[in-house]
């Protein structure tokens, strides 16, 4: 059964909180879709976030998707990962 997008979003938040070492609850329902509004990501932080996501979802992002806007948009990320999971990564 394909994983639901809300579950994916929760796991993304978990990775975000973990990779940026934030003192936040990833299950918080009010977690905003714009991740940069939660915490600023510098160049290395984005890299750690990407590595965390790839590790969590066992996939490799298409290099053409690499951009700070994409990686800070929870909805876009969830949608992309859900699609990749459906396609068998």
């Amino acid at each position, binding site marked *: 059964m394909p994983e639901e997008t809300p579950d994916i979003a929760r796991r993304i938040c978990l990775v975000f909180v973990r990779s940026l070492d934030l003192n936040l609850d990833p299950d918080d329902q009010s977690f905003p879709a714009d991740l940069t509004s939660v915490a600023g990501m510098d160049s*290395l932080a984005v*890299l750690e976030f990407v*590595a965390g996501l790839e590790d969590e979802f066992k996939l490799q992002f298409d290099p053409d998707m690499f951009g700070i806007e994409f990686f800070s948009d929870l909805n876009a990320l969830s949608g992309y990962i859900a699609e990749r999971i459906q396609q068998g990564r």
Partner: protein
Amino acid sequence: MHRKVGVSGYEIPGPFPYQQPDSSRPWVTVKDVLWGVYLFAGLCVPGKLLPYLARAVSALDPVARLAAKPLRKEIVKNLSLSFAAAPSSVALENTAGRFISNAIRQKMDDLLLMYDDAKVRCLSFSGREHLDSALSAGKGVMLVSLHWFANRASNRWLASIGYPVMSVRNHEPPDRFMGRVGHRSLQPRYVSLLHRVIRDEVYIQDRECSLKILQRLRKGGIVEIHMDVPYSRHLITRSLLGRPRQIPAGSMHLVKISGCAILPKLALGNADSLEIRIGPPLAVDFALPMEAFCESHLASVMDVLESMAIEYPDQWELLTKL
């Protein structure tokens, strides 16, 4: 992405705002004046005449060596502190003299390399097989190097034979000799001039810097990282030529995430007589956790680069910044 600055013709790459100059600095320094003359020459001297200008400046080399006495002294002091078995004072003076010549030649090369049809003559390129083999794995190549005077010329030549190399640069490098006018007005234009020379680059001020590097590596491309500048949030202090130095460990994060090969690069000479040496790939243990990965691989990278700096100190631009 680019905006014009005044009518100077130099474009400031990227939307990265410049810091306010330090108010304790003098308004104008000798370096500001030299920079002004240099940038003016770059703008106003027709491209066809630049090689002649470069030759004329090269002919003034002995004068420049003499005029740069304080710099020569500093280099000699640095060298004598850095080598366990200190070379003779004559050898040190010779190295310092060659360093100054190489520095001047590099600046002349930059003026020439601004042009699309600039000719770079490479006399020797060794280690191409290492580069080809690493590229064929499809995971990208990280060339690790120091700030060799010939880096820019070497990358232009490599691009011309089918190996485009992305460089990582500081949009606002610190400069202790620069005045307020230099900082505010000339440095942006100098960075812009270098943008025309280097072309394939990403700035450390760019929040997407690491992503752009990873993107290039994931696409199987080549990126050059200078390991002698602390361009990373993650720094590891290590001795380089006998002095502690902060080494950027962010590059090793990129290696671990991308799975790319690490190849040491040495570039010698200038645009007229270039020599490029690519070393064999360094052994990488991807199973190590990140912190240990960075520590261990930075050590092996720096060992190789340090031995190059010891062999060719006059080719290393940051010899004065030890």
